Structures are given as C-alpha cells and as structure tokens.
C-alpha cells in the first residue's frame, strides 16, 4: 500500500540553530501518527515544514507519491499550536469565512455538532474559554473535509476534563477514516490516540514504531515510584536501575517481587509507593536519560 506521506532527510536550519536534523518517516493512510518529544525537540518545525507553512533547508516531502502541489492545501487541515484569527468575527462567522476559502467543505452544522461548538457559536472568536477555543480550532482544521489533519499540541493548556473531551473528538475524526498527524509532549495522549509514534529529541527522530512496540523494545520494565522521604536516603545502595528526581525516585524493574523484597530489606517505608506499568514516558527516559516534560 503506498504511503500517504513520506518525509525524507528533512533539515531546517535557522542561522546557527539546526531545528530539524535529517528527519525521515512515512505515514500510511487512515492512521494517527504522533510526533512525541519535549518542548524544543523540533516537532512543530517539522510539521510546519510538512504543512508548507515554512520552507525546508533541505529534504523531500512526498504526498501521495508526488511532491506537494497547490492542491495539497485543499486536502489538509491544520490546527496550529498558537494562532490568532480575524478579529470581530463570531465563531460561526469565522467558520463561514474559512469555509469560503476551500472548494470542498464540511457541512457547518455537522461540524458544529462534531466539535461541540453549538453553545458558543455566536460568541466572538476571542471571547471563548481555552477548551472551547481548542475545539473551535479543531473545527477550523476540519472545515475542508481534509484527508490529512495536522494537530500541533492540541491539548496543551487544557484541564484534564477538557483534554479528555478533545481526545473523544479526535477519536471520532480517526474513526471517520482521516489520517492524523499529532504532536504532543503528553505521553498519555500519544498512547491514547496514536497508532504510530516517532520520538524526537534535539531535532532528530530517536525511535519510531507503535506505542506497544516501543514500550516492548525500550522499556519492558515496571516502574516503582517512591517519595524520597520514604526512601530514607537508602536508594543509593540499591542494586536495581533507578532515576532520581527532586521529590522521588523511580526504580525500573522486571521482577516486582525481588524489588519489593530489596526495598523492605533497606527499611524503606512503602506506604506512599506507587507501581506503574511501562509507558512512553519510560521509553523516552530510557532513551535520553531525561523526562519528556523536564
């Protein structure tokens, strides 16, 4: 099956800074592809180059087997991480304005229902809450019934409830057969929404695959999280691999029983201990020695 999008050796330099350094990946139609990485990893630059909003220093972007043409913009929907809109327009008027810029468009009432905009569609577009704004931006990205949707940090700044609501909407988009490219630094979001993930750090892709594959390959262990005060300073004597943070230590182990035995033997207080299965956060930690949101 031909790839919907292929990115080959993409490089973007800003004077002395290399924001994207030889990124290569391909995406099949109908999946949700996540670019995961900490702030400053080059995720936004990468997708803005793919979106044709900024030009690459070098590299190739192939859409449906050919270099992008003018029609590319008719086929993609974009939700930027940060953007402003034309002032003094209501949410519905803004949607109508953008609708008029495309040839093939979504029915407005359906879109309003899909993104739950009904209650505030007649308010000015700068007088809505953060969660409403993100859903509205998503609606703008879908106005042209795109086959490829770019979502750049769609849930940043949202409270957990608003984030989950947004994930539901993105799930519906996915189920509608659209291809989604998503950037995020929330591993939970990537795990929940993405079929394929590429982890970026310092402008490069350091790992690629499905979330399950990556976890299996890079972090098959269980994580035991212990507050530092409970560990009583004894963690330095542990025989297991651990990561030390300001308020806690995280121990990675494949044998939980042995781990607990050792902790008890060191007279640590396990009352506030938590145990977590492995996730993409561990993958990133194991690959870079840093946390995603450090």
């Amino acid at each position: 099956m031909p790839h919907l999008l292929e990115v080959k050796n993409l490089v973007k330099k800003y004077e002395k800074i290399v924001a994207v350094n030889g990124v290569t990946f391909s995406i099949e139609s109908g999946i949700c592809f996540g670019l995961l990485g900490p702030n400053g990893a080059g995720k936004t630059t990468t997708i803005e180059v793919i979106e044709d909003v900024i030009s690459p220093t070098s590299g190739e972007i192939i859409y449906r087997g050919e270099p992008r043409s003018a029609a590319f913009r008719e086929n993609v929907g974009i939700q930027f991480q940060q953007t402003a809109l034309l002032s003094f327009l209501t949410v519905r008027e803004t949607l109508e304005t953008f609708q008029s810029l495309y040839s093939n468009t979504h029915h407005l009432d359906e879109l309003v229902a899909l993104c739950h905009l009904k209650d505030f569609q007649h308010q000015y577009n700068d007088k809505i809450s953060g969660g409403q704004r993100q859903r509205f931006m998503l609606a703008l990205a879908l106005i042209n019934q795109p086959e490829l949707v770019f979502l750049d940090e769609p849930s940043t700044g949202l409270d957990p409830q608003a984030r989950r609501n947004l994930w539901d909407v993105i799930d519906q988009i996915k189920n509608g057969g659209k291809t989604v490219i998503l950037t995020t630094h929330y591993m939970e979001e990537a795990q929940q929404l993405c079929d394929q993930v590429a982890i970026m750090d310092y402008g490069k892709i350091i790992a690629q695959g499905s979330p399950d594959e990556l976890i299996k390959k890079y972090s098959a262990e269980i994580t035991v999280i212990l507050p530092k005060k409970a560990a009583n300073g004894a963690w330095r004597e542990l025989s297991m691999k651990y990561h030390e943070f300001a308020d806690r230590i995280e121990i990675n182990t494949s044998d939980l029983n042995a781990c607990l035995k050792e902790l008890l033997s060191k007279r640590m207080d396990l009352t506030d201990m938590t145990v977590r299965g492995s996730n993409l956060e561990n993958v990133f930690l194991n690959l870079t020695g840093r946390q995603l949101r450090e």
Partner: protein
Amino acid sequence: MKFKRFWTMFLARNREFFRDRAAFGWNFLFPFLIVAGFGVIFGSRAYTVYKIGIFPYESKTVSMENVNLPQNFLSMRHLNFIGFKSAQEGLTKLRHHKIDFLIKIGTQPPQYWISDSSPKGYIVEKIFYSSLVPAENMGLATKKEIEGRQIRYIDWLFPGILAMNMMFSALWGVGYIVVRYRKNGVLKRLKATPLTAFEYLSAQMLSRIFLLMFTLTVVWIGCDLIFSFYIGGSYFDLFLVFLIGSLSLTALGLVLASRGTSEEFTTGILNFISWPMMFLSEVWFSLEGAPNWVKMFAEIFPLTHMLRAVRKIMNDGAGLLDVSMELTVLSLMAVTFLIAGASMFSWNK
C-alpha cells in the same frame, strides 16, 4: 484568482472595521473635530495671532479704556492683550515665548521688550511702530479688494484635513494592521489555506479604499451641513481624484505591510513617512516661498498631488483635464507601489 476567496477576505476586513466601534467612531470623529475646531477658531474675528503682555496691570484681562497706548494699536484685530503685575512676571513669560511682546505702560515714550529669537515678536514690533505713525501719514499705499469669490481659510483647509485623514487611515489601516496580523499569526493561519497572496492583498486594499471613500463621504456631508463649503468644480471629479489618491496611498501602505513582524519598527517607519508627508504636502500651510529643494522633495508624496488636484477642483473650479498631470502621477505611483508591495510580500517574515 478566485473571486469567492477575494470577496470573503474583503467582507471579513470590512466587518472588522465596522464592528470595532472605537476605531470606527474615531475615523469619523477625528476629521470632523479638526474641521469643526478650525472652523470655530478661524471663523471668529477674535482669533488671536499675537499675544502682548502689559505691566504693571492688576488683572489678566486688559480693559482698553484705562491703558495709555495708541488706540489704533489696542483696537487691531488678532492681538490679545494680557496684564501682568510686575516686569519680572512679564519677562519670564516673554523669555519662555508664552507671549510675543511686552510693554510697560505709564511711561512716555512707552518701553517695550521682545525676544530677538522670536519672529512673532519682530512682527509685533513693526505693528507697534506702525500704530505710532499719525493716520495722515498712512496714505502711501491703497488697499484693493480681491476680485471674484473669496476662498475662506476653512475652504482651503478642509480638503487638506480630509486627505490627511485618508493618508493616516490608508497607511496605518493597511501597513500596521497587516504587520500585526503577521506577528500574531493570522497570516500564517491564512497561508495554510488555498488563499493566495494576491487575493489577500487585493482584498485588503480594496476594503481599505472602500472604507476610505465611505468615511470621506460621511465626513464631507457632515461638515458641509455645518460649514457649507464652496465647490468650484464637479463632485464627480473630486470623487475620482480622491479615489485615485486613496489607491496610491493604500498601495504605499501595502509596501510598508509587505515585510516585518515588529509593530514598533513599523510604527517608526509609518511616522517617518506620514509626518513629513503631512507637513510638506500643504495640508496645513502653503509651501509658497519655501526653498526649491523643499518643494521638489514634497513632490515625492502622493498626498501632495492629491491635495493639489482636490484644491484646484474645489477652490478654483478646475476640470479633470486641468488635473490630468496630478492624476497621472498618482496613478503611476499607485502602480509602482503595488508592484513593489506585491513582490516583496511575505506571509511570515
């Protein structure tokens, strides 16, 4: 170019203008207030040009009856007499150019002070001396009346104020707004759609020209109801000149809008262009008698040509043929600015 996309952007920009009530109101109120202000000031015979201090005098308001100065000096128009209790108070005001001339009363001959660096003081001194010459010696020159219709100062000034308002509105309404849109990401969002730069820029320009002509019409009607301006030529010719003038000014705004993401820098550039244009295009005063290089320099501004054509039509009753040179220059400027603006335009730099 797709007309639907152009029309969408045109409507969106117009909506923005009409719904921003503060900016919308100010666009009409500003020229109206200036015209009304000047109408009141220059329409009154009591308009003060020169301020003359008198001491020793107990009150600020001077009564002509109890001042021992030539009566024809005291009764001259456009002189305002202000009383000071002491010489020191009067001299301080003179030193700071708050008054133009200071006289001590009660001495014979009268004593006076002027600031040698003040042109106004120099003129008042000459006026004062002329008032000392006996009336029988004044017959060396004969005053003749201007033939035909006299043009009031407000008739001369009115087109200047309208044109100045158009200039500010065109430069800031296009130049500043587009830079702000580039900075806050609106242009980036639009770039991600099929909208082309040509469609976007032409919509911005035509929307601004429409708004300029709309504002012009409303302000004109409002001011004309109060001041009854004299129009020597035809309204159609005036409209055409204003239209081509606004095209060239808006196109100049487009050049300024073509690049940049710093509102502060753009403000500086806008001021750098608009202030000399305002002063050298004869909005407020004539450049008659100014050095030739100043007059030549003023020719680079579209406002100069627009204003010259408007005044010819309005004040002198000229037709389109009489202002063909100005119209040609304005059109050429508009085309040049359009090409420059469109070729330099960037969505995000």
